[in-house]
């Protein structure tokens, strides 16, 4: 036993030495390369003016603001599209997952077709297709489609009523040159929101279906024997037990959704990765920009892991109570 421990320690010391040597060598080579190509390093560029505009931003931003603020605006844009997409995909996915368990053949077939189609085509392709549909196939703003009172859809995006303080709403109206007023969602935002939500919904549906099917059959038989209605059976027996196996993969999928929001770069929505990419091209600080992207996403992942653990504890308690 003593010999084994000694050997383990020696192996680890060797590993650590090899690792440090490799790291030192890499840093050395990198420094030499950067000196040769005249690449500067450091995070000082974050304080300098960004010098580029951002297509749309939740945070007030113009080109004279610092690069750090530009990246913050990018992160805010990532969250602005990810949070609604998380809500939509969870709701839609749950409905489709339940639909796949329906006794109705047509509904089951439709939901299965949805899942099998959306899951088997790359998200990037779906985003590009949605973006093309919105920007090329929809009518011009001057001939916008009216989906509901004061809701207009056109090449320039979707205009919806927006709270304007108090009980008042700022209503979009048809003007001379197109739609004026209300909140306008850009085509980039719309395509990304739509693409992310519909794609993730297919995965959520599979999770929900598998979760409900994981509850032993005897549970529903017992529930029915007790005279519970279908809704009661679902709410009181199946759902609490299913949630335990649904929540961990569900939070994973929503985390993937947030990471997939980085595909925004392909359709020009200014999310964190797009802004960092622009910064990278302007300043040439590749290592710093990539490190920043990775750090932000790692923090988001850790937060999600923590949230997931908290949710699991909560639902665990809920399942015990009901």
């Amino acid at each position, binding site marked *: 036993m003593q010999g084994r421990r000694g050997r383990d320690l020696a192996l680890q010391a060797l590993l650590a030495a090899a*690792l440090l040597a490799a790291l030192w060598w890499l840093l050395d080579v990198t420094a030499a390369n950067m000196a040769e190509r005249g690449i500067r390093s450091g995070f000082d560029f974050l304080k300098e003016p960004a010098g580029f505009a951002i297509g749309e931003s939740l945070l007030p931003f113009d080109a004279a603001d610092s690069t750090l603020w530009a990246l913050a605006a990018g992160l805010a844009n990532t969250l602005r599209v990810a949070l609604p997409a998380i809500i939509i995909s969870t709701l839609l996915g749950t409905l489709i997952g339940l639909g796949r368990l329906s006794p*109705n053949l047509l509904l089951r077939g439709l939901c299965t077709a949805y899942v099998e189609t959306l899951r088997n085509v790359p998200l990037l392709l779906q985003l590009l297709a949605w973006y093309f549909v919105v920007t090329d196939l929809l009518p011009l703003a001057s001939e916008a489609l009216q989906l509901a009172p004061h809701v207009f859809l056109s090449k320039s995006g979707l205009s919806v009523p927006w709270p304007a303080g108090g009980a008042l709403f700022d209503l979009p109206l048809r003007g001379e040159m197109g739609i004026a007023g209300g909140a306008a969602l850009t085509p980039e935002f719309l395509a990304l929101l739509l693409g992310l939500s519909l794609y993730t919904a297919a995965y959520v549906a599979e999770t929900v279906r598998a979760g409900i099917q994981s509850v032993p059959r005897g549970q529903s038989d017992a529930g029915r024997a007790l005279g519970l209605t279908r809704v009661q059976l679902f709410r009181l027996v199946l759902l609490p037990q299913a949630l335990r196996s649904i929540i961990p993969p569900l939070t994973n999928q929503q985390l993937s959704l947030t990471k997939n929001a980085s595909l925004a770069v392909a359709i020009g929505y200014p999310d964190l990765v797009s802004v960092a990419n622009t910064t990278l091209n302007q300043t040439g600080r590749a290592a710093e920009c990539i490190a920043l992207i990775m750090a932000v996403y790692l923090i988001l992942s850790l937060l999600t892991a923590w949230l997931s653990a908290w949710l699991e504890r909560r639902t665990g308690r809920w399942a015990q109570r009901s």
Partner: protein
Amino acid sequence: MNHVTATHAWLRRNLFSDAFSGLTTLLLLAGAFCWLPGLIDWMLLQAVFEPDAAACHAVNHAGACWGVVADKYRFILFGRYPYAEQWRPLLATAMLLLVIATSGLRLMSRAPLLAAWALALPAFLILMGGGIVGLSPVGSDQWGGLPLTLLLATMGMLLALPLAILVALGRQSGLPLLRGLCMLYVELVRGVPLISVLFLASFLFPIILPQGFSIDVLLRVQAGIVLFAAAYLSETIRGGLQAVSGGQHDAAAALGLDRWQAMRWIILPQALRAVIPSIMNSAVSVFKDTSLVTVVSLYELTGSLALALAGDAEWRSFYLEGYLFIGLIYWIGCYAMSCFSRTLESGK
């Protein structure tokens, strides 16, 4: 009379089991009557199938313009590969697909299958790259379309799998330092989006490698895909290793196998077999993820479609048909893989 009742019973059970189900059936049928004729009209009846841009514009999106596919399919499938030499990527793709299908359908036993792979991969690269046996050299910057998608996905999986096994074993190691390193790698990669890994491969690898040791962008991006896929796969395999019961370790030890022999002959085969469906899921993901390399200027299917249409004013307004075409290619690939995984799951 008998099968009228049988039909009636079937209808009752599947479409009208209760009021809600009946209402759903009626609503869905009404929806189908509203939408299906229009869809069929667009896809087939009013569609233009000839590569005739004028005819496509005349229809003005009332019907699909499949002509864009008829006109551009060679560019979409093979990218910027020299036109006269495109039989080479065609042959290479067909050969690789054949080997993949043969493996999936288990038409060969193990030894000839391994030999087929060992021949097919170098043959693929020789056909694509040329430079020997009388084939003119074609730089990897000119590779594109379906062969590039297949290459990135296949090599991605083939190289990621052994790496993932090593990392999964590393996470079970008795050495805390090794365990920590493996965990760090897995959590780091799984925490970030693939695009950032591709940026890393495309922008950063050239800076951290010694001068004069430049590797081309295709290889760097391939390395990025392998590193990314291996992190996810290693978690899958770790799950498989944990699923193998402790008795197996004990039995192997009782037979006098040492730790490595036990791992090689007893534990790993069972662990891998247990997670084949998840491995296939990863394969589907890798296949779909290859579309992202467009972002770092490699023109696989998605990228070559954009290349084919972006510069062409005649066809530029028919992207949707192009997207549907390559979407179908991706769909067939992914669906075939998930079907294969399902036959394994049901134990056939």
